[in-house]
């Protein structure tokens, strides 16, 4: 295979670094290619099956993928740089925009890291509500994935069904947080507002009817020969590869590794709740599909227990120098006015030090690493995003597969580019 031909396909001189990377790696073809079946295909960044602005450069031999190189960065907004000039409170709304399908998860992950740095803890009621919020986010995210994964392989009906369910979650968020999408619900040391009884009732009704609707959705796919045939045995990521590539979440558990931060490094009130860690050891797209499907039922279990066990009480910690006071108190009380002034103008001034805190978000290990120099804004904030690391494992899964499998494999990894690109 001549390199000139590839250059011509790329259409640029000098060759871009990305194309060069594709050529440099282990892609030198050793067979005769009299028919000229070797080609480079560009997929994305605007492609409906890449779930956002993921771009793949694929080298094909006929219909077989010889090598794929993902290209990220089309949604890079520089949140880590922005964080260095934001106060700790100001950064909360930015976390909504990371994994935009599960905003409350991101809010919770971020404030937990800051609270660890400060050495404070939210009151029990706030912790239960955070668990409910994080699990609702997981459900919302998995429901979107469920519909779009089915759509990727040609089952269009399901998308409407799962979006109908997700709409109900967004109605709950509307009442819980005041908005449907970019929630910014958590505060350092607590929550923006308490969960009302009406909202708790709504959540309960939602999780009561969800299993039946999930059964209905599943019945469309689980015995569907076309769906199983398109997902079974493709996108193989062995257990060793998954660990070596730092995959996390359903991708790791779909490769048979029973890793769940909720159980391994418990945070919030997860130790008090009973749930199972779902693993499947097929290492293929179908295993990852089953992991997420069963995880949704575990989330329902967790929410049901959390709603029952949730105590009454405040939702903000009694730390006046760290936690933003309520607006109505700022307007009527001198102390709160002073604290609000200091917190807004100078920030919370945590001790000097560095912490890393990770939670199990819907995509995997979502971690925040903060270096504090003792002032009101972080010296350095690193977001460890699960989608970024899972996309890194894509070339291994794609290699040797067919071109029509690509969408089914990307669908099973469930990347969200808002998070991968930061």
């Amino acid at each position, binding site marked *: 295979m001549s390199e000139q031909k590839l250059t011509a396909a790329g259409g*640029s001189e000098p060759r871009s670094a990305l194309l060069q990377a594709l050529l440099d790696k282990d892609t030198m073809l050793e067979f005769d290619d009299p028919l000229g079946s070797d080609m480079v295909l560009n997929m994305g960044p605007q492609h409906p099956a890449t779930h956002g602005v993921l771009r793949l450069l694929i080298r094909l031999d006929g219909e077989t993928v010889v090598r794929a190189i993902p290209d990220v960065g089309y949604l890079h907004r520089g949140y880590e*740089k922005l964080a260095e000039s934001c106060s700790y409170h100001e950064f909360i709304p930015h976390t909504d925009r990371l994994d935009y399908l599960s905003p409350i998860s991101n809010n919770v992950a971020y404030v937990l890291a800051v609270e660890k740095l400060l050495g404070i803890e939210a009151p029990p009621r706030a912790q239960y509500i955070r668990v409910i919020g994080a699990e609702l986010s997981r459900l919302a995210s998995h429901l979107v994935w469920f519909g779009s994964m089915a759509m990727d392989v040609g089952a269009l009906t399901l998308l409407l069904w799962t979006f109908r369910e997700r709409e109900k979650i967004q109605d709950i968020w509307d009442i819980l947080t005041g908005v449907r999408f970019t929630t910014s619900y958590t505060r350092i040391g607590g929550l923006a507002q308490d969960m009302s009884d009406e909202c708790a009732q709504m959540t309960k009704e939602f999780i009561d009817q969800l299993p039946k609707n999930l059964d209905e959705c599943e019945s469309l796919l689980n015995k569907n020969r076309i769906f199983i045939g398109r997902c079974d045995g493709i996108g193989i990521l062995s257990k060793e590869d998954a660990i070596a590539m*730092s995959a996390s979440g359903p991708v790791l558990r779909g490769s048979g590794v029973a890793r769940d931060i909720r159980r391994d490094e418990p945070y919030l009130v997860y130790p008090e709740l009973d749930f199972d860690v779902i693993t499947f050891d097929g290492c293929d797209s179908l295993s990852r599909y089953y992991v997420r499907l069963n995880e949704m039922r575990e989330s329902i279990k967790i929410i049901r227990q959390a709603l029952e066990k949730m105590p009454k009480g405040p939702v903000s910690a009694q730390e006046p120098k760290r936690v933003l006071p309520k607006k109505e108190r700022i307007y009527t009380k001198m102390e709160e006015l002073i604290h609000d002034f200091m917190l807004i103008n100078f920030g919370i*001034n945590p001790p000097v030090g560095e912490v890393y805190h990770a939670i199990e978000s819907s995509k995997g290990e979502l971690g925040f690493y903060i270096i504090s120099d003792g*002032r009101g804004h972080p*010296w350095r904030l690193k977001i460890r995003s699960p989608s970024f*690391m899972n996309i890194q494992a894509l070339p291994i899964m794609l290699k040797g597969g067919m071109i029509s499998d690509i969408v089914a494999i990307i669908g099973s990894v469930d990347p969200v580019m808002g998070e991968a690109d930061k």
Partner: protein
Amino acid sequence: MNEMILAKLAGNFKDAILSSNEFRGELTVVVKKEEIVPVCRFLRDDPELKFDLLSDLCGADMLVSEMDRGPEVFDHDYENDFTKILEQPQSRFQVIYNICSLEKKTRLRLKVLLTESEPHVETVTSVWPGAEWLERETFDMLGIIFDGHPDLRRIYMADSFEYFPLRKDFPLMGIPGSLPLPGTAAAPQEGENRHE
């Protein structure tokens, strides 16, 4: 557990461990940069430690200027505190490895310190292949060069971009003209930018 890790490291790499501290239960060990790969390989392969998962890898710019310090707000012993983080004031960059063990469920943070004139450190992709993209990101954002990296290209910014945005001397608003938009006069000709 943390004492055990420290004792093991001290026993096997006497000269390579520069310092260590514990904050909020998290152990941070500063490793000599020449020894980072052997230390990582030891931590991964030791049957009692088994740090088999690289959770995160990132860099940090520790540049401090007088202007940057600003007025002291609360009664913080800032001067003394900050030198604790800097470790060695002459080393501007840090590379931070957050690693964890799936089996033992423990975490550990390793650090190497790099000077501004020589921001080079050996890659750990031979120990954890998943470090490839994380190191590319660190290179892209801070300009730290990982020697022996299989594919050290920019990952977020365009290939033609000349600066390292997460460095403290890179302004928040960006540098005008440094990233030409398509369709403007300053945009590079076809074939020069990354989107061929």
